[in-house]
C-alpha cells in the first residue's frame, strides 16, 4: 500500500462536495415527488398532463404495492421489446451512416435486458456494433427510463416506510413521468452542454478522417456522445458510447469532466438519503444512513488508491520507475496499465470506487488490469449490494433492507420487538428482507460456480491463474448487481454468457425488487407508534455503526471464500513473484 497526499486530498474534496450536494438535491427530490412544486412546473405541467392524457392515466389514482409493481413490470417489458426490435432491425433503419448490420439475437437480448435493468453490461463495442439510431433512440432512452424506474421504486418504498396506516404507495406512471421530466431531463441538458464545452462531441456524423503529421491516416469515431454521456452518469447506467467508456477522451476529456461525472454518479443517490429523512419527518435519519455509507465509501476509496499507487512488483526489476514524483519530473507512478494519463492513479481509483459503490458501471480505467487488491475493492463494493449511495433508487431501497435487518438484530440483542421509524418489524417484513438479500449471493455464486466448471464458461477467460476466476466472479457480480462494469478480459459475447448474464441481470433487478415492494406493502399499512424508552434509536452513531457492521458481516460471510480463491490468492502469488 502506498498513499499520496494528493490522492487522499482528491477523495476528501470529492466527499465534501457530495456532502454539500446532498441537502439541495434531496430538497429538490421532495419538490418533484411529494410537493410537486418545482420551478419547472409552469413550463412542463402541460407536457406532463399531455403524457397522462395519451396514456389514459388518472394521475390522482394511487396504486397499492401490487399495482405499482405490475405497472413497473409492463413498462419494462415494453421497453425491452422495442429495444430488441431496434437492435435487430438497425440495418434497415435510418441514422446508420456506417451501415452496421442487425445485432444477432443472443447479443440483442442481452443488451435489451442490460439497458432496461439499469445494468448496461456491454458485450459489444459501441462504435462497431450499434448504429446512431440504436444508440440514441434505444440505448439512451433506457438510460432515462431505467433510472426513472429505479427512482420511482425508491420513492414508493420510502412512502411505504413513512406513511402511517395507509394502503397505497403512489402512482407509478406519475412518479416515472415526473422523474424524467422534472429531474433527469433538465439536469441532463445542462450536463450534456457542459461536457460538449469540455470536448465531448455532439454530432450526427459517425466518423472523421485525419492524416497525422507523420502521414498516418486515422479514422476517428464520434457521434451524438454528450447527450448520451450525461444521462449515462446521472442515471448510474454506465453504458458507454465507445468501447473504452469514460476512459475514451471523447467521453471524458479532462480532469474537470471526470470530476463532474463522478459527482453525477453519486448526486441522486446521496440526495435520496436526504429525501428519505425528510419524508420520515427527521432529516437526522437520512444523515445516519449517509454516515454509514460515507464510511464505507472512504474505506474503499483509500484501499483502492493504496493498492494501485503501490504498483506491480512483477514489473519492479525491469528498469521502470513506478514511484510517484510530484514536483520535478512529475509522474503518477503506480500501476498505469489500463489507466489514462489525465486521471493518473488518484482520479482513476476514485472513479472506480464510486462507479461500483453506486450501480453505475462506467469505467475510466480497466479494472481487469488493476492489482489484485485494487481490483477486489470494486468487486466487494458490488457484492455488498451497491448500497454505498448506490444506483439511482436501487441504492436506497437496498440500504433500507439492510436497515431492517440491522434493527432486527438490535431487537434480538435487547429482547424487544424491533421497530424502524415507529413501525413494528415483524415476521413478514423480515422474511421479505431476507429473501431479497439472499437472491444476490444465490445468483452471483451459483452462476459463477456453474461457469467456472462449464467448458464454455472457462474457455472465454482472458487471464490465466486465479485472475481468471476473478473475471468470472466479477461478471456475475456486476450483472446481478446491475452494475455493468467488467473485468473485460473475459470474452463474454458468446451465447452461453449472453444468456446466463442476462438471467443474472433479471434476477438481480426484479427478484430483488419484488420482495422489497412486498415489504413496503406490508409496512405502509402499519401504525406509527411514538418512540418509547426501550426503542432502539435509529438516528445516531450507534445505529450507523450497527448498519455498517451488518452490511460487512453479511457480505463477508457470503463472499469471503470466493474472494479468497480469486484476488486474495492472486495477491499472495504476485508478492511471491508468480506470473501466468
Amino acid at each position, binding site marked *: 500500500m502506498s498513499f499520496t497526499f494528493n490522492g487522499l486530498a482528491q477523495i476528501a474534496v470529492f466527499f465534501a462536495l457530495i456532502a454539500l450536494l446532498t441537502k439541495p438535491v434531496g430538497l429538490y427530490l421532495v419538490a418533484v415527488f411529494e410537493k410537486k412544486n418545482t420551478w419547472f412546473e409552469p413550463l412542463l405541467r402541460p407536457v406532463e398532463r399531455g403524457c397522462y392524457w395519451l396514456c389514459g392515466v388518472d394521475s390522482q389514482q394511487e396504486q397499492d404495492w401490487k399495482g405499482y409493481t405490475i405497472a413497473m413490470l409492463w413498462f419494462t417489458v415494453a421497453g425491452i421489446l422495442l429495444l430488441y426490435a431496434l437492435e435487430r432491425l438497425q440495418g434497415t433503419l435510418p441514422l446508420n451512416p456506417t451501415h452496421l448490420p442487425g445485432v444477432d439475437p443472443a447479443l440483442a437480448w442481452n443488451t435489451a435486458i442490460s439497458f432496461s435493468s439499469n445494468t448496461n453490461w456491454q458485450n459489444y463495442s459501441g462504435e462497431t456494433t450499434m448504429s446512431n439510431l440504436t444508440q440514441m433512440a434505444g440505448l*439512451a432512452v433506457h438510460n432515462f427510463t431505467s433510472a426513472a424506474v429505479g427512482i420511482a421504486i425508491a420513492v414508493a418504498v420510502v412512502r411505504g416506510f413513512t406513511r402511517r396506516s395507509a394502503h397505497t404507495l403512489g402512482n407509478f406512471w406519475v412518479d416515472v413521468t415526473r422523474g424524467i421530466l422534472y429531474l433527469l431531463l433538465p439536469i441532463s441538458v445542462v450536463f450534456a452542454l457542459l461536457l460538449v464545452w469540455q470536448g465531448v462531441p455532439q*454530432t450526427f456524423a459517425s466518423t472523421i478522417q485525419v492524416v497525422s503529421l507523420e502521414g498516418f491516416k486515422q479514422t476517428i469515431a464520434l457521434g451524438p456522445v454528450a447527450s448520451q454521456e450525461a444521462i449515462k452518469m446521472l442515471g448510474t447506467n454506465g453504458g458507454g458510447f465507445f468501447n473504452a467508456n469514460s*476512459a475514451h477522451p471523447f467521453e471524458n476529456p479532462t480532469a474537470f469532466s471526470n470530476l463532474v461525472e463522478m459527482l453525477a454518479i453519486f448526486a441522486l443517490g446521496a440526495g435520496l438519503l436526504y429525501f428519505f429523512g425528510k419524508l420520515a419527518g427527521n432529516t437526522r435519519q437520512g444523515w445516519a444512513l449517509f454516515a454509514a455509507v460515507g464510511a464505507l465509501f472512504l474505506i474503499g476509496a483509500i484501499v483502492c488508491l493504496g493498492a494501485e499507487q503501490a504498483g506491480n512488483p512483477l514489473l519492479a526489476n525491469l*528498469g521502470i*520507475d513506478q514511484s510517484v514524483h510530484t514536483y520535478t519530473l512529475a509522474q503518477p507512478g503506480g500501476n*498505469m*496499465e*489500463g489507466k489514462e494519463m489525465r486521471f493518473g492513479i488518484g482520479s482513476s481509483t476514485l472513479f472506480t470506487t464510486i462507479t461500483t459503490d453506486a450501480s453505475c458501471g462506467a469505467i475510466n480505467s480497466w479494472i481487469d488490469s488493476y492489482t489484485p487488491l485494487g481490483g477486489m475493492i470494486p468487486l466487494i463494493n458490488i457484492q455488498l449490494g451497491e448500497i454505498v449511495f448506490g444506483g439511482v433508487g436501487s441504492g436506497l431501497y437496498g440500504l433500507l433492507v439492510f436497515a431492517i435487518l440491522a434493527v432486527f438484530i438490535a431487537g434480538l440483542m435487547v429482547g424487544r420487538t424491533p421497530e424502524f421509524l415507529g413501525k413494528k418489524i415483524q415476521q413478514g417484513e423480515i422474511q421479505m428482507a431476507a429473501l431479497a438479500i439472499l437472491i444476490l449471493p444465490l445468483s452471483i455464486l451459483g452462476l459463477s460456480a456453474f461457469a467456472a466448471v462449464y467448458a464454455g464458461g472457462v474457455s472465454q477467460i*482472458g487471464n490465466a491463474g486465479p*485472475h481468471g476466476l476473478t473475471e468470472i466472479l466479477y461478471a456475475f457480480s456486476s450483472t446481478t448487481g446491475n452494475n455493468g462494469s467488467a473485468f473485460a478480459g473475459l470474452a463474454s459475447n458468446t451465447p452461453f454468457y449472453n444468456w446466463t448474464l442476462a438471467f443474472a441481470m433479471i434476477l438481480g433487478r426484479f427478484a430483488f425488487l419484488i420482495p422489497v415492494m412486498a415489504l413496503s406493502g406490508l409496512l405502509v399499512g402499519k401504525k406509527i407508534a411514538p418512540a418509547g424508552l426501550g426503542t432502539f434509536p435509529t438516528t445516531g452513531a450507534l445505529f450507523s455503526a450497527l448498519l455498517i457492521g451488518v452490511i460487512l458481516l453479511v457480505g463477508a460471510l457470503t463472499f469471503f471464500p470466493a474472494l479468497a480463491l480469486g484476488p486474495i490468492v492472486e495477491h499472495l502469488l504476485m508478492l511471491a513473484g508468480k506470473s501466468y
Partner: protein
Amino acid sequence: MTTLAPTTTNTPVPAPATRPTIWQQTLSAIRPAIVLTLLCTLGLGLAYPAAITGLAQFLFPSQANGSLVYHNGQPVASALIGQYWTQPQYLHGRPSATTPGPYNADNSGGSNLGPTSAALVQTVQQRVAALRQANPDVPPGTAIPADLVEASASGLDPDISVAAAYYQIPRLARVRGMTQAAVRAIIDQHITGRFLGIFGDPIVNVLDVNLALDRAQGH
C-alpha cells in the same frame, strides 16, 4: 429536525370503495406501458439528442465536431485523440493496445492484461528494450517512467507524464539539432496542471509539443 406539512406525506389516500384486482391492474397497465415507451422514444431518443446537437453546434462548434486541429489547412488530428508517433524527431506517446493497430480511433480499448499476466511482463520488457534503443542518448541505468511502457485505457491517450516527456529530450534535441534546454522549454510550456491543483494529474499533450517543435524550427 424538520417536518413536512401533514397534508403532503402522512395522510393516507382514501382507498377506493372496491380495490382493483390484480387482473384489473394488469389490464389497465398495458396502454400506459406502450404509450409511455413510445413517447419516451420520441422525446428522449430523438428530440432530446437533436436539441442538444443543435445547441452544441451553435455554442461549441469546434468541440461538438471532434476538436479538430488543422495544419496548413488540413485536419491533422483531434486535439483529444492520441496518435501513433514513430519518427525520432517527434515526441512519442504511450503504448496503445487497440486492434488491429495502435491508436485505432475507430475501436478504442485497453490490453485487459491482469497484474500477474506473463504476457504483460514480457510486453513491458520488450517496450523497455525498444525505448532504450530509440533513446541511446539517455544515460544508461535511467529508469523509464511507468506510463511510457504501460498501455493506456482508451488506447487513444493524447498525453504523457512530464517525466515521460523529459525522458525523450536528449533524442529530440539531437535529431532536431536543438539544444536540450530549448526542447525542455517547449515541453514546459505545454504542461497542464491538475484541475484546481487537486484533481487529475499533470500532463503533457504530445501533439501540442510536436506542433510547437515544428513551429520552433519554422515548419
